[in-house]
């Protein structure tokens, strides 16, 4: 855990994103604030539709516009607000300073180019290396991410690699230019457990080595517990709770987090009936007034239906967007 007051690498403030669709305006991100320091791992946890991926895309500057629009907030990266940069300057930051790893490695790699060519391209374009030197670099990278017989396989095409190996190649690509920040969007969701463990280990190890900031976007409470320093739980486009990883699992301060933790079957515990959060996540074109979680919340009172709870400070390094965070922390259900 990093508690040193380092200057933040990434500082997202009150970010708002909406999608203008045929069915109306979907408010995907509604004022998200988070920070990541160098060498730190922030896990953004949420279910589908929570806005966790959209936030990351806005940070990376790869939001599809239209239909997606950033409608408010600031994204400071190394002190500069990315949203004020020009298109060309923004592009230079992307890839060189911050890189992204996607869930589906197969569709993220170009099927008609060898992996060596794709890895080498990064060096040819950004560093002006010759084709031959770039290929050498590609082999080096592949070795780095643990691809056996890298020199022999550098000319292979993406489909010739297994899922785990492809995700390693994606990681190699993200690392190529030694970025300061890596955003990994469900990097292991498509992988089998045994391979997932390998890939997460690799990612954690490389992060330590390069002292990078890492944003890990996932829906898997297990993966988060393994690698994160801090966790931000998202619901309906908002952060509902942030906390250092140990504290969040020991005593969640938001009823949604508590519900999630209670609703997953655990390998180390066998109970009869799982706790189930009632109802469904809200429709983003019509988020309920007050606290967006109130229709599903066992603690909801009148105030929850009218007043949107701010992020209350709930102890050192912790925050909870619940009117009753104290009660939740105390174990009320």
């Amino acid at each position, binding site marked *: 855990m990093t508690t040193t007051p380092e200057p933040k690498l990434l500082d997202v403030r009150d970010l708002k994103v909406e999608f203008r669709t045929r069915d109306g305006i*979907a408010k*995907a991100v509604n004022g998200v604030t988070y920070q990541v320091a160098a060498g730190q791992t922030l896990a953004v946890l949420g279910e589908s*539709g929570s806005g966790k991926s959209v936030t990351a895309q806005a940070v990376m500057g790869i939001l*599809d516009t239209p*239909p*997606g629009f950033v409608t408010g907030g600031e994204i400071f990266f190394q002190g500069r607000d990315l949203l004020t940069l020009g298109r060309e300057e923004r592009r230079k930051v992307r890839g060189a300073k911050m890189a992204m790893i996607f869930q589906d490695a197969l569709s993220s790699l170009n099927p008609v180019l060898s992996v060596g060519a794709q890895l080498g391209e990064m060096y040819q374009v950004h560093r002006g290396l010759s084709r031959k030197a770039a290929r050498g670099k590609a082999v080096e990278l592949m070795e780095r991410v643990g691809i056996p017989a890298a020199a022999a396989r550098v000319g292979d095409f993406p489909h010739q690699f297994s899922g785990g190996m492809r995700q390693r190649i994606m990681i190699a690509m993200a690392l190529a230019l030694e970025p300061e920040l890596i955003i990994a969007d469900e990097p292991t969701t498509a992988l089998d457990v045994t391979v997932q463990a390998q890939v997460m280990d690799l990612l954690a190890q490389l992060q330590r080595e390069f002292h990078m900031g890492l944003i890990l976007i996932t829906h898997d409470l297990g993966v988060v517990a393994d690698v994160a320093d801090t966790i931000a739980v998202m619901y309906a486009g908002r952060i509902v709770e942030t906390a250092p990883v140990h504290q969040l699992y020991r005593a969640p301060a938001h009823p949604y987090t508590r519900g999630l933790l209670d609703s997953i079957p655990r390998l180390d515990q066998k109970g009869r009936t799982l706790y*189930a959060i009632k109802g469904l*996540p809200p429709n983003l074109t019509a988020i309920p007034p007050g606290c967006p979680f109130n229709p599903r919340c066992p603690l909801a009172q009148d105030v929850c239906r009218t007043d949107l709870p701010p992020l209350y400070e709930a102890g050192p390094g912790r925050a909870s967007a619940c009117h009753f965070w104290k009660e939740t922390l105390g174990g009320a259900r």
Partner: protein
Amino acid sequence: MPDHVPDEAITHGDGGAAALAIGAAESLERTPGTGPGGAPTGRARSLWRDAWHDLRRNPVFVVSALIILFLVVIAIRPQLIADGNPYRADLAKAQAGPEPGHPFGFDTQGRDVYTRVVYGARASITVGVCATAGVALLGSLLGGLAGFFGGWWDTLLSRLADIFFGIPVILGGLVFLSVVTSSTVWPVIGFIVLLGWPQIARIARGAVFTAKQNDYVQAARALGAGNGRMLLRHIAPNAVAPVIVVATIALGTYISLEATLSYLGAGLKPPTVSWGIDISAASTSIRNAPHMLLWPAGALSVTVLAFIMLGDAVRDALDPKLR
């Protein structure tokens, strides 16, 4: 009765509107490929209703549909807008220009061009509609079966389709139709169906093959459903869209093919009134009586264009990703 444990609360209370909208919200992050907020949030929602919703607002569709509606009406009852007789010849007026009551002028044999253009719609529309219907039926039947059963049946059919694809259309038409003496539209329609089916068969085969992979087809099979039920209830409704799109566009090209063959003397033959025949007749006197060419050719172009535009609009509505 089951005890309704907390999780059941979802559905009994909070109504369908919420559930309806959730589909849209979920697809924000779930639809692979399109990524978050990929604009068409409800690709899976009722295809036809969505398509109709789109089409009504598409001016290209509205204009082309109105033109086609008009053409179909006059093809059925040309008397509605032309009270003359397309065969009545007045040699005194041969190649004469427009005059009151005869806005398009007269042809070489002194027949009223306006009346002939109006009556010519019937041949074109008949050929277009019947040929398309035949092609669509034969093509989707053969292609659909090939896609569904696969194996040697598929191999055989695909090779056969290749062979028919290889036949040059105009040359084939000249050879095939020159031996036919009938002056009706049926030989032309038959010829177009014969050469046209592979195009639809390929589309249908692919669509059926894709639909066949869907879990709901597997689910029906696991229930013990027979081939007929699977094809008719589960596969056909989900594979028909691309066939309709291609057939609509093909309709326009069949009309122009008929005109081309008629122009070359191999298609329709007098006394059938056809734009192609009239264009052919007019081509010899294009210098001194351009109106003879202009009007049937214009009518032909507008008709073909209308069908192709309609097909485009339908495709955009049915499959936004093809755009």
